[in-house]
């Protein structure tokens, strides 16, 4: 009986012992909509492979690379601010993990249209018109040679600018020449569009505007301005 009690106490203590080692703050978030929700602009199979294979692999590799380190408790933006001190396995997978989560949120079913409010005003003031902004953003996407991303960024001066980055880099990283707070993005890796659009990246970018989630971008813009 005594022995059984000892066992019970030991087993009961295991969860507390594990809890002492804090869980990573970095989670693999659910996709905010169904795989087919962005049809016909982004096809279901692309979404499924993109989220469940590519994005998940970046997350798993990132989680494995930082396991047991302080980075498990460090916010992503702070990790990016010092990314030059990290090995490629952390930089690439951290970028791949964070960029894709941002990208899913920048899209929604029945999205599209034009940004409103302060963001709409700022886009008009910076680029002349929403159409001009779209043109410059699309051009940055087409011109990115190889794999990468296009971003709408709020600079340190609070002004908007468009930038593209290679591979899984992003404008938070201290390895970037032009840094700032990204509020909108587009994945131009071939895996983002090849099943449906193949070599026609420009057609993918045209389709993308139909699913842009401007509510989300407006919210990020407001937050970025408050931070200044």
């Amino acid at each position, binding site marked *: 009986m005594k022995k059984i009690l000892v066992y019970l106490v030991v087993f009961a203590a295991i969860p507390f012992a594990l809890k002492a080692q804090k869980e990573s703050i970095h989670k693999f978030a659910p996709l905010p909509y169904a795989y087919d929700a962005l049809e016909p602009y982004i096809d279901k199979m692309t979404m499924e492979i993109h989220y469940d294979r590519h994005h998940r692999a970046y997350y798993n590799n990132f989680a494995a690379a930082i396991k047991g380190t302080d980075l498990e408790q460090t916010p992503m933006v702070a990790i990016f601010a010092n990314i030059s001190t990290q090995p490629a396995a952390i930089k690439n997978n951290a970028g791949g993990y964070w960029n894709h989560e941002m990208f899913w949120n920048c899209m929604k079913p029945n999205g599209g249209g034009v940004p409103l409010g302060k963001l709409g005003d700022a886009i008009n003031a910076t680029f002349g018109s929403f159409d001009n902004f779209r043109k410059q953003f699309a051009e940055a996407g087409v011109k990115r040679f*190889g794999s990468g991303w296009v971003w709408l960024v709020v600079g340190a001066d609070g002004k908007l600018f468009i930038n593209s980055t290679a591979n*899984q880099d992003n404008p938070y990283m201290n390895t970037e020449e032009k840094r700032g707070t990204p509020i909108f993005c587009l994945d131009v890796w071939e895996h983002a569009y090849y099943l449906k659009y193949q070599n026609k990246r420009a057609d993918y970018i045209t389709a993308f505007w139909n699913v842009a989630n401007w509510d989300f971008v407006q919210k990020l813009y407001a937050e970025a301005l408050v931070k200044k």
Partner: protein
Amino acid sequence: MDYQFPELPYAFNALEPHIDAMTMEIHYTKHHKTYFDKFVAAIKETEMNGAPLEEIFTHVSKLPTPVRNHGGGLYNHTLFWESMAPNAGGAPTGKLADAINVKYGSFEEFKAKFNDAAANRFGSGWAWLSVKADNSLCVCSSANQDNPLMDTSDCPATPILGLDVWEHAYYLKFQNRRPDYISAFWNVVNWEVVQARYESILNK
């Protein structure tokens, strides 16, 4: 010299089931052709118009970026098509096989090293087996459409075998499974051509 868009040395479906016909068709008629067209347009704007690609690559750091990107895309794909053939694969023989065994211990160990270079290239790029200036072999990878002939290369050498690991090279059939594509590639490597390239470098 006028630049020519090279013929594909076999039918689009010739490398099935390892490389599918649709991938070959889009890869050759769209991607490769676009590199050719854009290279021809870009090089016209420079003093090197008409020079062989190999010579252009030795000055590429001083030329406009489109020359590097599209010239690389033109040259790399041509070398890639020629490096493959239907009913090919197997193992190299002759002097190349000897050199591989000396450098890597065995053909299998060489393949493992090449597979690593191809799988670990993050983003778009190529894996290469090349011959260095001292005639020794080396395996490396390069980003985007760069190659070991370029004066920007961190592994300067003459490539004799190249594997395209841009997602467009395998996504329709293999999607995110790049390692499966790399495994399939070994079934279509045209070792006769690779050996001939190697021996012509030795004879220089």
